[in-house]
Each structure stands twice: as C-alpha cells, then as structure tokens.
C-alpha cells in the first residue's frame, strides 16, 4: 500500500511516499494511523491529520486494501 505524505508528516518520515507491506496487515485508516505512530513516534503528537484514500477523504473506520493509495494530510496554517 502506498502512502503519500504531506506537510509535517513528510518531514517526520523523511520521505514523500511510503510503501507499506501487506505483511503489516493494516486493515483500516485508524489502524494505519496507529501503525504510523508506533513507527514514527513524532506522529503521535499529530491528532488532527486528515487522511484520503484514493483521493477521497476517509474516516478512521474506513477499510483499506493493498491497492489503495492513501494520503496523510496534516493541517497547515501559514499565510
């Protein structure tokens, strides 16, 4: 599963895109957030991330399959 990263999440992970193996068995958006938090402890602080699945806004309970393209979109506020 490909995960595109934006904003501060890109900075934390250090990459624009992550590819997560099916072996991780991540089945929902909420589970993906938990996985990210464990793997990248600084993500823990991000409580207001928006997540998109195949370019559509997704809630935590949305199920994920390996073919999905996920985007992690933290808010930005500068102007």
């Amino acid at each position, binding site marked *: 599963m490909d995960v595109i990263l934006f*904003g501060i999440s890109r900075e934390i992970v250090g990459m624009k895109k992550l590819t997560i193996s099916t072996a991780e068995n991540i089945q929902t958006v909420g589970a993906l957030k938990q996985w990210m938090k464990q793997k990248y402890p600084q993500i823990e*602080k991000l409580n*207001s991330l928006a997540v998109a699945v195949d370019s559509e806004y997704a809630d935590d309970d949305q199920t994920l399959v390996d073919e999905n393209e996920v985007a992690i979109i933290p*808010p930005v506020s*500068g102007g």
Partner: protein
Amino acid sequence: MIFPERYSRQINLKGFGAEAQEKLQTSKVLVVGAGGLGVPALLYLAGMGVGTIGVVDGDTIGITNLNRQVLYYESEVGMSKAAVAAKKLAQQNPSIRINLIEVFLSVDNALGIIEEYDVVIDATDNFSARYLINDACVILGKPFIYGAIQEYEGHVSVFNLKDGPTYRCLYPDYPSPGEIPDCNTAGVLGVVPGIIGTHQALEAVKVITGIGKTASGYLRIFDLLNNDQYEVKLKAKPENKRIKELQDNYHAPNCSTIPTLKPKQLFEWLNSEKEFLLLDVREQEEYQQGHLVKSVLQPLSNFDVRSVASKTTMLVVTLCQKGGRSIKAANILRDYNHDVQVYSVEGGMEQWQKEMGNKLIVS
C-alpha cells in the same frame, strides 16, 4: 452599468464577458489578513474590479514580511498593513470601494464584519482565525475561500458554498499546541503565498461570477517544490453545517512569530549568567499571589511598551498564567522594536508549576 475601458480585456474574454464583469462590480469581498496570502488576493481583486473590498488586519508591517508581502515598502515598516493596503488599492482602482477595517478578526467583531459581504477570503496565518472564520461563515451562510501554506506546500479550497463541506469537515479539531510548526520556525519562500493567494482570488471570481468549476468539495494541495498537485474529494458532514453560535474563544496555537520557551529552559536561563528581562504580564493581584524571582510586573491590560522598551536588554521573556497574554505582550513589544528578541513562556505559570513545582516562586 458602465464598463470602463480598464476591464475590456475581461469583457472581451470568452466565457467571462460583460455579465460576469457586472457580477464582479456589484460583489462585496472581505479579505481577512493583509499578509502573504492577502496581498496578492487583494491586488488582483482590486485590479479585476470587485466592487467592494473589505481589508481586515490589525497588524503592522514588519521587515520580515517584505519577502512575500510585496505591496509594502521598506519605508512603511511599522505602519498599519490594512491602512497601507487600502490606500494603495484605492490608487490602483479608484472606481471601487475599499473598506478599511484595522482590527484583528475576533469573536466579538467577526459576525458584524462578515455579515456585510458576499464572499470571504481566509488569508490569515493561524488556526485560531481559521476556525473563527469557518464558524462565522457557517452561521451567516457565506462561502469562504480557504488558503494556507507551509514551506513549499499550499492548500486551497472553497468552503461552505451552498451545501458544500466546511473547514471542520476536513479538520474537525484544532491541532494541539506544538503539533504544527508556525510560519516563523518553518520559514516561507516569498512566492509561495503569492501563488496560493492568487489562487484564492481566482476561486473568489469563480464563486462570484459562476464561471468554471470551483474548488468547493475538494481540497487542492500544491507541492510547489516538486511541481506536484493532489486533490482530495471532501464530504460535507451535516453536523458541521449546524453551527448556531461562535465559541467563547478560539485559542489555539497561532502562527505568531514569537518563539516560546519551555519552563525548564527558563529555569536554566534564570540559573545562568544570561542577561534578559523577565516580564510578568498578568494583573497585579495574580502577580502578588506568586511570581517568579527576577520577574518584573507589567500587566498586559496596561502595557507600557515604551517604558519596557527603554529599560530592556535586547532579550525579553514574557510570562502570564496560561501562555496566551504573554504572546500578545511579546507581539506588542516586537512590533514596537523589531530588533528585540522576545520569547513567551509556553503554558505560563500553570505549566511552570506543573513542571517545576514551586521552584523560584515568591509572593
């Protein structure tokens, strides 16, 4: 309606024409924030002939603004952004009406100000103002054009257009303090807000005239460093359209240019040879109940910036009860003298007591 020659290029434009031009000229647009996003939006809205433009900003021009806020000149540092912008826009297009509103949008004034306009442009630089604009626009049924940037990334959408989604449908809750870097620590390349603010002006034109396809229902993300674009389809959540009144306050970490100091760091500073002025900006009664040694009382309610600036070393730390007033005081001080280095203590005395107990507190 008369269409001066100055709009001929728009009137002759296929798909725009006299009808759309007339809609622009009878429309009223409020631009909240005359900074990095607001400046380009304002310039184009005025140039294109939006009939009434409101400019809301309580801030003054700082030297560090000039890399991106290209409407302002170095000789205007220290002057009111809204006033300088309004004056120049009136010169750019004398046939339009410019309303000068020299305040920061707040819970007390937001509804009254926004009510007068058809479309709002959120060109602010902090979460607090963004949630306030969202809620006020939902209450009043006004669409608003959202734009925000961080480093090389920009976000644009049109929120609350008819049944469309709102900012809270994208981000229901405030980020927690420290979660997202502010624009000072993150830095910004001058042209980036220029591009995003110009996009906001474009979306405003589409909303007003009905031409083309707006960004309503979508968040558009521009990765301007890698020339990538990403679009997310949003869902309108009914509960977010049902806001009936504003919250009592919209305190959130804002994009203040004031760096913060954690209690532990302040403790180290106080125990070091470092020379700085520690200003307690709470009220006298609060100060008397317990304050830090070496702190000087200077309540925000009666903030005498001249006197503070005259006695100061070039390094000042502001402190209050919870960390809000100290940021305001720090901003006042920094606006007065841009060379003073000001820090605000994160979480104020309450955080100090949580982390340090009663260390260095006297009454």
